[in-house]
């Protein structure tokens, strides 16, 4: 465009009209406002980081456990001093196995066996869990009596903490759980590679124990799995059926309105109230056993139901009416329409909702406390009727223990719980990404 053809007077070259509209002040306010937003987000992320850092820094050591390789002599004199094991199998059960382990360690350290004080101090370096460990070895193969075998025995919780550097050694030895002598032995054994940190399988397999080194979340994981199974079996079909009815069949009237409001409200009822319900109805009224994962599963199912219903209804709503019209137009009945067309299309949404509901149920603690899942359960529950605990409840129980070794276990259990949740949520996200359909 050449300027020549534009009439010269045409462009008023005065620039934009300037008025005092407080631009500077307003932009300052704008910047402040944005800064508040950024600060809020930063705080949120800071809190998240602090939380995860706390848990991980305190808990990652729980996945390793200190063990000592002790040459144990299965001396008949100690195990079966009266030689009565042929007649009375109970004898092998009652034997004083920790002494075997202690004697082994005393020999290893070269301590004078007559020095009672030193021997006892050395014995305290080993976990009392050696009783069960050695007993099981002998029961499995009584022929080892009289032989000497190297056995990996867990170090006691205090030695474990000390070896992981969690004990402040500058404190006067009278005021800590491990004395200088034990530290010296520990270092000596560590130098010879007799005392080492090994992967802590016990954390995943042991049940409750009053000693940190033999406490694990095995029972809790089984309990949680039972409950998740029950939730899946009950809440998923009932939730899907209820949503199908409400979304596809229910007439719009007062009753369905009531159900709708009721479901939204149930989703926001405090979880502890469901615990009270479980206690009153399932345990007191129906007479189901306390502490059983069956009751826990029922309570969690009722709690998860609204979540699943809300998610399923959203998924059903997202299926466009044209699909329904097409099916009905071909002469399908409403039921056929729903089960042949709508439900399969909504399935990914239902799955995602279910997984999220399950994750919620897995992390729930309060209602389980009320139905007595705070039990001290040592043995693995064989069925959902047996007493069990759940992962979050186990965390709660350990959180109340003051010992350093338990704090580590607690954090370790939290890491395991968060790991489960992460896997579930990531699965849900992948499902959503993969199968999400935009109409």
């Amino acid at each position, binding site marked *: 465009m050449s300027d020549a053809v534009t009439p010269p007077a045409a*462009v008023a070259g005065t620039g*934009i009209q300037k008025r005092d509209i407080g631009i500077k002040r307003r932009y300052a306010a704008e910047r402040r406002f944005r800064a508040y937003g950024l600060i809020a987000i930063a705080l949120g992320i800071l809190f998240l980081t602090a939380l995860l850092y706390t848990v991980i820094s305190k808990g990652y050591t729980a996945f390793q456990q200190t063990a000592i390789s002790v040459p144990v002599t299965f001396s008949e004199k100690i195990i079966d001093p009266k030689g009565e094991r042929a007649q009375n199998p109970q004898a092998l059960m009652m034997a004083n196995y920790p002494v075997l382990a202690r004697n082994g360690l005393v020999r290893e350290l070269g301590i004078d066996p007559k020095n009672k004080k030193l021997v006892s101090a050395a014995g305290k370096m080993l976990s009392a869990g050696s009783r069960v460990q050695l007993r099981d070895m002998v029961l499995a193969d009584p022929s080892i009596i009289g032989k000497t075998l190297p056995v990996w025995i867990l170090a006691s919780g205090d030695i474990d903490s000390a070896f992981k550097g969690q004990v402040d050694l500058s404190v006067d030895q009278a005021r800590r759980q491990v004395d200088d002598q034990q530290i010296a032995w520990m270092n000596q054994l560590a130098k010879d590679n007799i005392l080492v940190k090994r992967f802590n399988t016990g954390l995943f397999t042991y049940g409750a124990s009053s000693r940190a080194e033999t406490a694990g979340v095995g029972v809790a994981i089984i309990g949680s799995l039972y409950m998740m199974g029950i939730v899946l079996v009950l809440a998923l079909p009932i939730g899907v059926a209820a949503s199908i009815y409400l979304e596809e069949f229910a007439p719009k009237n007062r009753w369905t309105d009531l159900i709708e409001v009721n479901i939204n409200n149930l989703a926001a009822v405090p979880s502890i109230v469901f615990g009270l319900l479980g206690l009153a109805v399932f345990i007191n009224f129906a007479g189901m056993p306390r502490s059983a994962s069956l009751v826990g599963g029922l309570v969690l199912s009722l709690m998860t139901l609204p979540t699943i219903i809300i998610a399923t209804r959203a998924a059903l709503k997202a299926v466009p009416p044209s699909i329904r019209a097409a099916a009905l137009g071909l002469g399908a009945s409403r039921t056929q329409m729903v089960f042949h067309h709508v439900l399969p299309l909504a399935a990914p949404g239902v799955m995602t909702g279910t997984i999220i509901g399950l994750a919620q149920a897995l992390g729930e603690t309060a209602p389980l406390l009320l139905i007595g899942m705070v039990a001290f359960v040592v043995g693995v529950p064989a069925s959902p009727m047996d007493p069990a605990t759940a992962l979050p409840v186990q965390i709660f129980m350990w959180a109340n223990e003051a010992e350093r070794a338990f704090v580590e276990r607690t954090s370790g259990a939290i890491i395991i719980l968060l790991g489960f949740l992460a896997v579930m949520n990531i699965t849900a996200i992948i499902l959503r990404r993969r199968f999400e359909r935009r109409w």
Partner: protein
Amino acid sequence: MNMMSEAAVEAAVGAKTTAQPPIKMQGRLVNVSYGDNQALFDVDLDVRLHQVTALIGPSGCGKSTFLRCLNRMNDTIEGCRVKGSITLDGADIYDPSIDVVELRANVGMVFQKPNPFPKTIYENVAYGPRIHGLATGKAEMDEIVETSLRKAGLFEEVKDRLHTAGTGLSGGQQQRLCIARAIAVSPEVILMDEPCSALDPIATAKVEELIDELRVNYTIVIVTHSMQQAARVSQRTAMFHLGRLVEEGATDKMFTNPDDQRTQDYITGRYG
């Protein structure tokens, strides 16, 4: 073709050129793209002082995009890029030294669907003056609100319920409220994006009448789908097609004797 359109128009209209008012806003080589989609190609268009300029064309031709460039409303859309120059009184409005808030205070906008804020009628009109600090006291604010409503021809209808919700008005009243809201900031240019598309014929007539009155004090750019509306309210018309400016000129000439076949076809209803 675009490069010569103005010269051609000026030449063709001949005698009329001498009476042309000065240019208020001017777009040169305006290119707009949303992500990978280019919406406008090399648009050159002048908006003249105290005239109503109508932008017409089939849907998706870029007329609304161009309108939104004039007060940089496109800034709010993610991925939107504007190239070329648009000036207001000779100053490039995309120049970094120009403040978008100041620009919009001077180039107001009325939208397709009436969008009163969920506040009272009074507060709707007072909103602009309040954020820009245009009134120093309550009395002055009352006056601004009243004159703006009067100018929008709404005052008589709502004077008894200034403090009721603006969303309670009828569609046409809501749109005039939005116009009053824009006037209250005393802009120089008012952009209207199909202001009557959501209104019934009677309300439309009222708004059109209003536009004609407002021309005395303001420069107006209006996007419209209706040929008749463009013919009724505007002095100049620009025809857009597929993101290009096809033709621009005095409205009566455009509607009686357009240069371009596409304009002819569009006006006579062959497509659009």
